[in-house]
């Protein structure tokens, strides 16, 4: 019999809740919650500062976590791993530090129409401040980006490409390989938003060939408030600090500052060492299950949900026709029922989904839907969860007063 992973999650075990909002934030397993507690109970001191044993232990935990993250994404060096609060902060770091110094008037920044606002607004800020232009890489109504779409936006003026690996609305993977190769032909750097991909697939920055990569811990079973930026060392070394203050300097005199070495140059102030320690536990938990298993479970559940929804009249699924192209995410609308009403009715049946524009308003406009309901599935969901979801969705139009 297949393992029910809900037993590893205190919030989910013995709880009738059907949690289908993991794309917003995942639930946390015991091992992660215990790691956070363990740090404060055993290792708590201000890391990278204390010269006493406890302080060195705290530093050690923090740096071990960095090493785990390095392995997790197969980066060449720990110097390329910067801890941040979340993917949004990671992307802003690149925009403010790299973007504002390397992007100039007349340059072009390519971003896809599918980007979450957090991988969109920082680049629009860069464009506004530097006089560069934003070029939107479009997709078709199913979320596919074609070679022709790429022809439209790449040019010799392309200097930076910011793209998500998986759409948070459609769940579709973007053609990162092709986009990277196009970007390299233009001499542009690539910033990959991996917030929605890291929970579902192995990430290898060397194979991907991207220059920067951002993700959040909280979508990956880790606590809130810990995120990661990967950057190629050559690029990071050359970049000015994003935030300044304590812990990011080598020496400060009245008229001179020497910044710390990588990665500390980009980690100003006291760091979230407990969060990093718990992120390490999250990664180890994921490794203990394995992405193959995670993907197998998700594929089965997504297919079940997709086929179930397809059988209900008046349901419109957004994105690809093949459920295998939905990485844990199915967005849909119901004719005549506002997504917020859908979500309230599902809530009455103890089912948690997201409704709205999913922080991707330009995509919603592009798809011609003002908002959708989004069910997002993770490996701790069960076939029973999906049955209950489908049954509830199937009752919504009737409960809203429509005769079938």
């Amino acid at each position: 019999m297949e393992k029910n992973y809900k037993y590893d999650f205190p919030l989910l075990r013995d709880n009738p809740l059907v949690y289908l909002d993991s794309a917003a934030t995942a639930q946390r397993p015991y091992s992660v919650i215990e790691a956070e507690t363990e740090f404060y109970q055993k290792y708590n001191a201000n890391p990278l500062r204390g010269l006493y044993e406890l302080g060195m232990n705290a530093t050690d935990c923090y740096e071990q976590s960095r090493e785990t993250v390095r392995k997790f994404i197969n980066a060449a060096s720990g110097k390329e791993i910067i801890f941040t609060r979340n993917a949004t902060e990671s992307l802003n770091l690149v925009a403010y530090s790299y973007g504002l110094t390397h992007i100039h008037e007349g340059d072009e920044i390519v971003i896809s129409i599918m980007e979450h606002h957090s991988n969109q607004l920082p680049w629009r800020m860069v464009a506004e401040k530097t006089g560069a232009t934003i070029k939107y890489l479009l997709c078709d109504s199913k979320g596919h980006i074609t070679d022709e779409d790429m022809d439209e936006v790449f040019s010799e003026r392309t200097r930076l490409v910011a793209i998500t690996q998986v759409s948070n609305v459609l769940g579709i993977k973007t053609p990162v390989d092709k986009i990277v190769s196009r970007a390299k032909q233009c001499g542009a750097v690539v910033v990959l938003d991996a917030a929605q991909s890291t929970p579902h697939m192995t990430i290898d920055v060397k194979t991907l060939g991207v220059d920067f990569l951002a993700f959040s811990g909280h979508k990956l079973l880790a606590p809130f408030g810990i995120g990661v930026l990967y950057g190629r060392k050559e690029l990071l070394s050359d970049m000015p600090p994003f935030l300044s203050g304590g812990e990011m300097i080598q020496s400060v005199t009245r008229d001179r500052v020497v910044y710390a070495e990588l990665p500390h140059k980009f980690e100003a102030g006291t760091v979230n060492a407990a969060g990093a320690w718990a992120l390490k536990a999250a990664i180890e938990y994921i490794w203990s299950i394995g992405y193959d298993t995670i993907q197998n479970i998700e594929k089965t559940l997504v297919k079940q949900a997709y086929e179930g929804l397809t059988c209900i009249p008046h349901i419109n699924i957004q994105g690809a026709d093949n459920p295998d192209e939905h990485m844990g995410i199915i967005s849909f609308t119901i004719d005549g029922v506002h997504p917020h009403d859908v979500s309230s009715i599902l809530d009455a049946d103890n089912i948690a989904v997201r409704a709205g524009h999913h922080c991707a308003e330009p995509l919603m406009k592009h798809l011609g839907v003002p908002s959708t309901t989004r069910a997002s599935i993770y490996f701790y969901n069960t076939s029973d969860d999906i049955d209950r979801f489908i049954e509830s969705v199937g009752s919504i139009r009737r409960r809203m007063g429509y005769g079938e």
Partner: protein
Amino acid sequence: MENSRSFYNEILTDHNLHPMHKHELDGATMRLEGINPSCGDDIVLNLKVKDGVICDGSFVGDGCAISQASADIMLDLIIGKTVDEANKLKDIFLRMIKGEATADEIEQLEEGSALADISHMPARVKCAVLGWHTYENMMEGKTDD
């Protein structure tokens, strides 16, 4: 959790699916747009007010069932009332949503009382009060400009 199940009751779904007052209004003397960004609800309220009496009213727009039904129920209540009477109903409705109105007061809201349980659904309060807030802003002389 049962709140929402009973929340989408017949009164609400009926006003949402078959609104009496959702149409343009010729000869409106007052007109104001109201927006609830959280649901993307967007209505335009029209009133015909003569000698301190709301002779007629309508709304147009889009949004969730709660916002649309609540605006329709509101118009049912205030058409034919004086502005003073309508203002009193508005005060009762807004207090009901906060869970602060008495049973006697809620009774004056007639079908509006069908929205009383919204006080247990904080995420949807803005939808229920959109019509009434637009009315309030209108009476306070706010304009779309």
